[in-house]
Every structure is written in C-alpha cells, then in structure tokens.
C-alpha cells in the first residue's frame, strides 16, 4: 500500500525516459513503455488485493500554504479508485502492447509511446487523488494528453481541428468544475473530499449551494464524458490513432466524467435537482447518440457515438441513484469498448479504410478479428450472459426502481438501438462477399493478444456482480470511506427478459437488413428522408455551434479590435493632433511683426487689469 505512488510514477518515468532518449531508443520505446505500463498494472493488482484485505488507505501532505489557505496533496485508495486503477493500467498496458504493432511504421513511434506514458501517469494520478484540486490538476493533464494524441497526425488539417476542438470543448466543462471548486472552498474551507462531504452532511452548505456546485461539477463531467450538449468533440477525436481512441476515448478518460460524479456522489445525492439533471442528461444523451450512430458510415465514429451513448447510460444510472450499476457498467464497458476499438483498429490496419460501405466480407480474411469484434458487439448489445448484459440490466433495474418511467423507457430504447447499430456495423464490415484486389492479412500477434485478453474480460467480467452468483462488486464498493448512498435494488425479473429480448431483437433486425437483406438497407433513407438526414447530420448540432458560438466569437473579437484601433488609438491620435494644431496656430501668431508682439503683450496687461478691477470690485 505504501508504494501506491509507484503506480503513477512508473508511466511518468517511461514518459521521461522516452522524452529524453527519443532519438536514441527509437523502436525500443515501445518495449520500454509496455514494460513500465505492465509494471504499473501489476502494481495496481497488488493494490487491489491489498485493499481487499486491509481496506482503505489515505496519505496526505502539504502542497501550498498561504496565510489561512492550506492546499494538500495525497494519495487515496478506496474501492472505486482501486477498481479504476486496475481498469486504467490494464487497458493502458494492453494498448501499449497493441500499439507496438499498430504504430510500427510511424516515424514518430517513440513520441507516441511517450504521450501514452504521460497519459497513463495523469490518469492513474487522477484516480488516486483525495482532493478536488488534485483531481482538477490531473483532469486537465489527461485533457492535454488527449489533445496531444488526437493531434498526433499534426500534419492532417482534420487532426489539427479535432485536437483544438477536443481541448476547448472539454475546457468549457472544466471551467464549470473549477468554479465549483472555488465555491466549495469558500463554503467548506477545504478541498478534501471527506471535508466537503462532512460539511455537506453537517448542513454547512445551503441546499441551493449544494445544487449549484453539484451541477457545476456535473458540467465538468459532461465536458469530459462527451455528454450532450458538449459531446461534439468526441466523434471528431477519432482523428487520433485508433489505440488512442481505445484507451482514452473509450475506456478511461471519457469515463473520468462518470468517475467524477461517482466520487462526488454524496454531494449529488444531497440534491434531487442535481440528480434529476444528471439522470435526464444521461438518458437524453444515450438515445440521442444511439440514434446518430444508426446512420453513420465511419467505423470509428459509430463506435464513438456508441461510447457517448453508453456513457449517457452510466450517467442515467448515477442520476437514478444506481451507483453500483454505473461503476459496474463503467468497468464492463471499458473492456468491451476497448476491445471493439482495437478490433476496428485491426480492421483499419488491414484494409486502410474506415467507411463501412466500402468495407465488407472481411470475415473470411480476418477470422480472428471478426470473432473478437463479434464478442465485443455481443457484449455491448447486452446479449445474455455477456458482461454487458449484466451491467445494463443493473442500470435498467435502478432506473425502474427509481420510478421515473420515461427514463426507464429511454434506457430500453437505447438498449434496442445499441444492439441494432452495433450489428449493422458488424454485418456491413465482416459479412457478405466482396472482391478485393489488394492483399489483406490478419494483424500481428502483438495486436491480437491484447484483444484476446479483453475479449475474455468482455465475456466474463459481468460475473463480478450478478444477482445469481453474488453482488461481489456492489458489496465491495460499499466499503467506501465516504457516505455514499446505496439504493437497494429489487427489480422484477421481467426487466431482464425484456432487455435480452430487445437486444436479440435489435440483432435480428440488423441481420435481416444487412446480412440476409430481406429488408432493404435504405428503407429509412427511402421512407423518411428528412429523419435520415437529420440523424446523418447529427441533429445539426455542430452547424448550430459553428453559427452561434464560433461566428459570435469572431464578431465580438472583430468589434473590439476595431474599437481598439479606432476609438482607443483614435482618441490618442486626436489629442496628438489637437496639440500640434495648437502649435500651428501659435506659429501663425508669431508673424514676425514686431508691433503684433507688443500689442499682444499690452492687451495681456489690459486684460489682467480689467479682470482684477472687475473681481476686486473696483467698479462699485
């Protein structure tokens, strides 16, 4: 336990080593990175097990103290972040390994691994933070890593734009979090979690303040987890290398939003409004993203929208007090979504093509990949006994038991849509026949092994929390040091059946449309052109933002810069002109006529005399 600090430090070391020896080690960077992240993973496992034995752990020290203000740094291990730690390090380790193959022929190979190391460091450190400032600190750092990796192909204009967008949009959310931090500090006098929670329990915060801060924090989460309305950056972020999408934009960083809400759960549960906001945002996002995913053509973008939708699912869970459900789904989703991305990556690696309509019939050539992808799809679709099945069921249950049937309905709809678009994707890519001239071959072992590991987890990770064999995860999570509210869920069984029915139904529909083709593929396009269009253009959100915010910003900026040039500088110039004009007149008066000079002098005298006579009262 006392060596927890090693877990963030190891990846940091790999980053530094690679940074400084970049020219030298070049290809070996991959090995270095993988080894260090592997070590971190081992460490995480040790931490996990030692936590199972001897419970929570917290160590703190002073970071900065100014007069009254004291800011601390520290490391904390509790069920939630022990779990996150394992997920992060594991996925990171696997992605490292995978990248050795995927990025093999990229000239900035070493740099890539450096960035991965930095990200792993920031993410693990974020997870281990016991206070809000530290969380924010690394919250921003992971954001930067994501920015760097999205913009990894810096010479591609799309990548450049995407990176910028990713950073700025998330930053909008971050500012919300920052404000929440400021408010909480002046309300509670501390930034440490337990301090805040105890203050909240002791009623030091007004309900309004609790609601406000909670919602502000949620804004931060919305930004990071690509929830509506700040979701627009995530699909674009797919411009980055695929392993990055798997690690950052599927498994770990985007989940940080959910993680944050989970961490601050006691604060949220203290305010129904906040909870409602979270639930609704989550539910809406889930359906919203799922519908968009129905009609997209880019393999990675479909996965991105599915990620958004799944994160929405988790938020929905949290909003409906399903703490365990959310964390559970976070875990399983990390595995199967990472798997899906890596599989997609292997497809792209093989076929150099991302448009699913141009792909197809790859099932024959890429047997391994196809199988793995299938597993992933089943898991996410919530096919019975796959991991996704259990976690989704948990969420549906919590939504139902929370009693808001609209949200429940949204959840169900999402479940069906998810199953459908995932298998649309699967069938379009792998099933069917297609003649290709170019040679397509299976990815190297370094890429397959990580996927296999994930596949195994995607299948079996569901069993860590079932109502049949035992709710190990839930029970363990309840040992958290914080006053988290665990709602006892007693969901009727028909929910589970309904859920499986929906998922199978979705799969079937997809099969009929895209594999067996008994239903025309483009019936939606044919029947409801407008709907299809709206979905295809992602509800025109990007267009809206571009016109409102981007254009608005330009307008304002130009206005002020003209103001600066013409009013501010113009004013200065005017004064200057006035003075020199005075000078001109002065020179004119200096006519060279001696008598003018004396006349001026004399009139001056007369003036003075008149004035003093008038003021002094000589004329009375």
């Amino acid at each position: 336990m006392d060596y927890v600090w090693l877990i963030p430090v190891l990846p940091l070391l790999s980053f530094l080593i690679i940074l400084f020896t970049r020219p030298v080690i070049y290809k070996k960077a991959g090995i270095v990175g993988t080894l260090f992240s592997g070590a971190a993973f081992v460490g995480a496992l040790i931490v996990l097990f030692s936590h199972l034995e001897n419970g929570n752990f917290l160590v703190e020290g002073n970071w900065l103290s100014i007069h009254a203000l004291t800011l601390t740094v520290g490391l904390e291990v509790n069920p939630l972040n022990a779990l996150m730690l394992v997920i992060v390090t594991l996925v990171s380790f696997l992605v490292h390994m995978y990248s050795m193959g995927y990025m093999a022929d990229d000239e900035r190979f070493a740099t890539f691994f450096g960035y991965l190391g930095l990200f792993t460091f920031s993410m693990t450190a974020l997870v281990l933070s016991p206070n809000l400032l530290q969380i924010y600190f690394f919250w921003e750092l992971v954001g930067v890593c994501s920015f760097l990796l999205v913009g990894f192909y810096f010479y591609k204009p799309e990548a450049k734009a995407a990176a910028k967008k990713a950073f700025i949009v998330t930053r909008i959310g971050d500012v919300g979090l920052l404000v929440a931090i400021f408010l909480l500090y002046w309300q509670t006098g501390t930034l440490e979690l337990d301090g805040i929670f105890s203050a909240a329990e002791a009623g030091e915060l007004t309900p309004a303040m609790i609601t406000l801060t909670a919602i502000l924090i949620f804004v931060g989460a919305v930004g990071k987890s690509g929830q509506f309305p700040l979701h627009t950056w995530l699909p674009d972020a797919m411009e980055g290398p695929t392993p990055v999408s798997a690690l950052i934009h599927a498994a770990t960083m985007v989940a940080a939003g959910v993680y944050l809400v989970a961490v601050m759960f006691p604060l949220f549960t203290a305010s129904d409004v906040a909870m409602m906001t979270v639930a609704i945002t989550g539910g809406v996002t889930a359906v919203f993203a799922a519908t968009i995913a129905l009609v997209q053509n880019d393999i990675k973008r479909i996965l991105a929208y599915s990620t958004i939708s799944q994160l929405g699912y988790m938020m929905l869970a949290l909003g409906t007090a399903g703490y365990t459900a959310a964390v559970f789904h976070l875990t399983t989703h990390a595995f199967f979504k990472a798997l899906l991305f890596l599989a997609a990556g292997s497809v792209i690696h093989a076929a150099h093509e991302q448009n699913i309509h141009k792909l197809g019939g790859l099932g024959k050539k890429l047997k391994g990949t196809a199988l793995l992808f299938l597993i992933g799809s089943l898991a996410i679709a919530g096919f019975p006994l796959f991991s996704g099945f259990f976690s989704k069921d948990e969420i549906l249950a919590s939504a139902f038991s929370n009693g808001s049937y609209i949200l429940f309905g949204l959840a169900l709809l999402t479940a069906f849509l998810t199953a459908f678009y995932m298998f649309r994707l699967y069938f379009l890519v792998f099933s069917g026949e297609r003649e290709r001239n170019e040679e397509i071959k299976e990815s190297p072992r370094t890429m397959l092994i990580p996927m296999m590991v994930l596949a195994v987890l995607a299948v079996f990770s569901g069993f860590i929390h079932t109502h049949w064999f035992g709710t190990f995860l839930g029970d363990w999570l309840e040992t958290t040091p914080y006053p988290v509210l665990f709602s006892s869920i007693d969901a009727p069984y028909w929910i589970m059946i309904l859920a499986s029915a929906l998922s199978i139904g979705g799969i079937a529909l997809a099969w009929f449309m895209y594999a067996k083709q008994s239903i025309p593929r483009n019936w939606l396009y044919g029947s409801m052109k407008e709907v299809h269009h709206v979905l295809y253009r992602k509800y025109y959100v990007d267009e809206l933002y571009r016109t409102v915010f981007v254009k608005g910003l330009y307008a304002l900026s130009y206005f002020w810069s003209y103001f600066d040039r013409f009013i501010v500088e113009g004013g200065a110039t005017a004064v200057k002109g006035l003075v020199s004009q005075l000078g001109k007149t002065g020179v004119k008066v200096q006519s060279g006529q001696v008598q003018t000079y004396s006349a001026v002098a004399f009139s001056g005298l007369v003036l003075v005399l008149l004035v003093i006579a008038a003021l002094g009262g000589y004329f009375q």
Partner: protein
Amino acid sequence: MSSIPLSAYLVTALLLFCMGLYGALTKRNAVIVLISIELMLNAVNVNLVAFAKYGVGASIRGQVFSLFTITVAAAEAAVGLAILIALYRNRATVNVDEMNTLKK
C-alpha cells in the same frame, strides 16, 4: 500756487502714454515708432514730476528720477537710431512691416 489738481497731471500723462503706445503699435515708419516710445517715457516723466510736486510726501526724488529717465531715454533713442541706420543700409527701408524676415 496753481490750483490744478494732481489728477489733471496724471490724466494728461495717461493720455500721453496711450498716444505713445498707439503710435508705437500702429505706425509703419520705424522712426515714428521710436519717437512714440520716447512719448511714453515722457508720460512717465510727467507723472514723476507731478508726484514730486503734489504727491504724497512730495520730495525731490521724483525729479531726480525723471532726470535719469530723460537721460536713459536719450541713450535709448540713440541706440535705436543707430540700429535703424544699420538696418536701412542693408534693407533700404524703414517700414516696420517689412521687418518680418525672422519668423516661423
């Protein structure tokens, strides 16, 4: 003892002064300008002498003063004329309006 009050002298002097000033400021002929200045100085003399006779604590000082003034005025006139001649030699004019080469 004449019964002319002091004020009469003073007014005369004032008028004299103003005439002188008027001449000095308006006349185009440099010589006249110089003469007008003399006029102003003489106005002062009238004042001084009047005060010396009828003024408060009338004393000889005023007349002494006026003697000095007259002398200085003479010197000033001399210098003025000298300069004027030099000017005339170079510019062949005594018109004040044309003495405006120094300006700007």
